[in-house]
């Protein structure tokens, strides 16, 4: 046992296990259907809201684009969002109408879009009581991504709330804030929000550290 106070305090804190890319075959582990493999009885996937869930039902779609402007077809994405009242529901239970957590992936099909079926989240407060605009927290993994990237998806039709969101306002460049705002589309009564995630270069998406 080490004598108390005999070593620098930093040495008493373990180092995190290092990250490695999820690689091109992430689907076999975390998105079985996308790998073309049989699924288990319960999978964590992209239907976060069942029809009876409270709130405005929406689809969230988009692509992931690399620094050459090409589609990233092997990205794996996790979503974490509040319910329509602005509360996170940590308990993941497929029997519940709504789950705060979901997974999706871009595809090998031509459009290569990810899709989440969810409800529009309510707004969540920061620890010191400021109101954040409604948002979905997005984590992205892919081949060639050594450590996952965190971003957020905000909603175009929440302009007033977006203008006052303390997190959006942490992004110094107003132009860059726009990279987080999904565009609203309506088609046959279905509401869809679209956000393309640009990993690098012109229009590069804002990624967060926290």
């Amino acid at each position: 046992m080490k004598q108390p106070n005999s070593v620098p305090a930093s040495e008493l804190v373990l180092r995190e296990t290092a990250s490695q890319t999820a690689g091109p075959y992430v689907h076999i582990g975390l998105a079985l259907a996308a790998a073309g493999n049989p699924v288990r009885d319960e999978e964590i996937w992209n239907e976060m809201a069942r029809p009876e869930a409270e709130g405005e039902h929406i689809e969230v779609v988009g692509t992931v684009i690399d620094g050459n402007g090409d589609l990233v077809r092997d990205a794996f994405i996790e979503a974490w969002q509040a319910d329509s009242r602005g509360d996170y529901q940590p308990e993941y239970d497929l029997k519940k109408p709504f789950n705060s957590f979901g997974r999706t992936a871009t595809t090998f099909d031509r459009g290569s879009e990810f899709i989440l079926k969810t409800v529009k989240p309510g707004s969540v407060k920061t620890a010191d009581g400021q109101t954040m605009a409604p948002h979905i927290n997005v984590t992205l993994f892919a081949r060639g991504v050594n450590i996952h990237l965190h971003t957020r998806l905000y909603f175009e039709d929440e302009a007033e709330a977006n203008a006052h969101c303390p997190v959006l306002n942490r992004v110094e460049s107003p132009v860059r804030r726009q990279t987080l705002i999904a565009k609203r589309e309506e088609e046959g009564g279905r509401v869809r929000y679209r956000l393309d995630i640009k990993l690098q270069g012109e229009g590069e998406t804002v990624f967060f550290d926290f």
Partner: protein
Amino acid sequence: MTHHDKRFVQRDRDWHPPAYAPGYKTTVARSPNQALVSLMKPSASELTGPDFRTLRMGPHDNDLLLNFREGKGQDGLPIGERIIMFGRVIDQFGKPVPHTLVEMWQANAGGRYRHKKDAYLAPLDPNFGGVGRTLTDEQGWYRFRTIKPGPYPWPNDVNSWRPAHIHVSVMGPAISTRLITQMYFEGDPLIPICPIVNTLKDRDAVETMIGRLDIARSNSMDCLAYRFDLVVRGELQTYFENQ
């Protein structure tokens, strides 16, 4: 007012591999150029996360020797070295992380993944899928039974090979602790020449990804055991008045 102030130890981004690591060529066009935007005061959006205790798992979800043949009327076992992969999920302060989701996936003994995009000439194993998941117990322990995956070539340099590895995904208590890594096998000569391993600048960081042979926990006449502990970001709580 007394304020419940939870946060996690800052992630050391010099310890983890950088986004841009040209020796691993795919990072070149997939790494952001702009700086990450730091959130100094994380909110529930970052400090909470899913709890999978109610996810219904199959009886062999953590047993890759058996879980692919289920429901297929097959009774064969996968080819390869039978191993137990086990360990603890703890945080940076050594505190166990109970009931957290640990998922893993891997190639078969020949180095081939059961994935529609893997066209390596090593054959698929009809008795091996290559995916597992489990929850840690009260003390943070997890356990899988599987076969040791094979190394395989991949297009990076003219002749690049991945060391034998198992991909490991851990949730931890919050979105902030989310981590995906790879477990390598102690003593594998491909580790020091792997472009993906070498995205890490610090050799001590590489050591955190090495599964160690644990002969004591191996089963006689059955399988070897490899121990792989996972450390996720440490949680801090402060209860001081916030003014």
